[in-house]
């Protein structure tokens, strides 16, 4: 289906062990900001098409986990393997050295991300927001990129806003554009960073609706950092509870959210449900 983002990687950065064909593997990842150790050794495999919800108190490192996969944050130690390729390191003269910008670009092409604050490009129309990257990054021809962008915007219910600028849209509409913009790149893994947190309560529903539709289509793996427990229960295959920089509990949503073992998780859920 996708002729795009064909990653050529002649350097043999094939991962040593590849657990059950995971599309993304975190291997003993730690991350410190100054003296503060936010993540204290994360091991995590995400399978193709798997929907994973990351929950946990603020400061538990949920967002940092997905930001490292998008290359917006560099791990302090450990490795992240994406589709068999080492993300933050590359092989050079038989040694693993820190990745260059070029290497990062080759590996992260299969990852897409939607942000809490949308981060739409304010100087471009909605349509331009969507079609710019396929044209310039994936070298798709303009007509086809435009066609796909329009289809995607129609899918998220914004087919009548193509020539509007982001400033003319509501928060919920902006977030739907942001999703369309990420989706036209046809990522294999899509990251959602608290995408409803900045929205007015009455606009949350329309955004979750779109995510639910995307999730139903299947083929793409999704990692959602979220505070919407009901939503996580509804669409996730697996829920991961992060606490104090480690994975404190994980499993199917019915188990983790309805019948948790971890005491901290029980407290956390209790606070949430009031």
């Amino acid at each position: 289906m996708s002729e795009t983002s064909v990653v050529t990687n002649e350097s043999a950065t094939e991962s040593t062990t590849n657990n059950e064909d995971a599309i993304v593997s975190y291997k003993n990842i730690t991350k410190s900001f100054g003296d503060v150790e936010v993540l204290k050794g994360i091991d995590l495999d995400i399978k193709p098409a798997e929907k994973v919800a990351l929950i946990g108190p603020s400061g538990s490192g949920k967002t940092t986990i997905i930001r490292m996969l998008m290359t917006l944050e560099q791990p302090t130690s450990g490795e992240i393997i994406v589709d068999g390729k080492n993300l933050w390191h590359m092989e050079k003269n038989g040694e693993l050295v820190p990745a260059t910008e070029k290497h990062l670009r080759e590996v992260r092409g299969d990852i897409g991300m939607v942000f809490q604050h949308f981060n739409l490009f304010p100087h471009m129309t909605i349509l331009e927001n969507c079609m710019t990257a396929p044209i310039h990054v994936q070298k798709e021809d303009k007509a086809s990129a435009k066609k796909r962008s329009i289809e995607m915007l129609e899918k998220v219910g914004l087919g009548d806003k193509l020539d509007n600028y982001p400033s003319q849209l509501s928060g919920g509409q902006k977030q739907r554009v942001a999703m369309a913009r990420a989706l036209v790149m046809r990522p294999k893994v899509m990251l959602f960073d608290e995408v409803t947190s900045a929205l007015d309560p009455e606009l949350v529903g329309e955004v979750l609706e779109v995510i639910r539709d995307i999730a139903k289509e299947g083929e793409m793996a999704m990692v959602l950092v979220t505070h919407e427990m009901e939503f996580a229960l509804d669409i996730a295959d697996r829920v991961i509870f992060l606490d104090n920089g480690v994975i404190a509990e994980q499993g199917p949503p019915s188990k983790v959210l309805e019948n948790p073992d971890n005491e901290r998780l029980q407290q956390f859920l209790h606070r949430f449900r009031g």
Partner: protein
Amino acid sequence: MTPKGQAPSTGGLTLSFNESNKYKGVITISAIADIFPALIQGVEVTLKVLFASIILGYSMAFIAGFCRLSNNIILRSFTGFYVEVFRGTSLIVQLFWLFYALPMLFNFDIGSNFWAGVLAISLNYGAYMSEIVRGSILSVAKGQHEASTALNMTRFQRMRLVILPQAVRMMLPEFGNYLILMLKSTSLVSLIGMHDILYQGDLLRDANLSQAPTVYLLVLVFYFLMALPLIWLTKKMEAFSKKGVATQ
């Protein structure tokens, strides 16, 4: 034309500044017809210096602005030195250095007073405006960098497609102000013998001292008329820049 300060029969307006005849100045409307064509001869030179300075000055601003954002510390410090030297010294002294001092010191010919003037103005304003370029690029929201990284753009694509178009919008209002300032500083080239508007005015005054008020009034009017389109342009740019910027 109006000796001893008597109201001229031909002119409509006489302003007396001083009781003493020797320093009496007048603005004589009848003389405008003589002065106007003489000043017009200077307009071409003023405009030529202005346009060349605009092109070179803005180029300098972008080059220096980008250099100050470079990862290369040598490039960064060298550009920083240039900016501070040109911001910290007077334009007229820089002009004299370029036109008189440097050619003598290093025994070269700068070619013409035109290029000396243009170079001094563009290096000086380029230094100021490079700070605008740098500041505007830095003030584009971090989320814009992150979104373009998430779309897997190269560093160059991020700058060209996302950051710079927004940064330029922030630069425009300031750029407009400097445009008007540049027009006004072109009058300095009269000091290195270029025949611009002010030079033509000085010539007329030398020929007839009592005309000085009329001459300089008209010189003011000339500069103001030339500034009008630039003021209009600045307002347009301000309006344009209000749209489409994400800042933190």
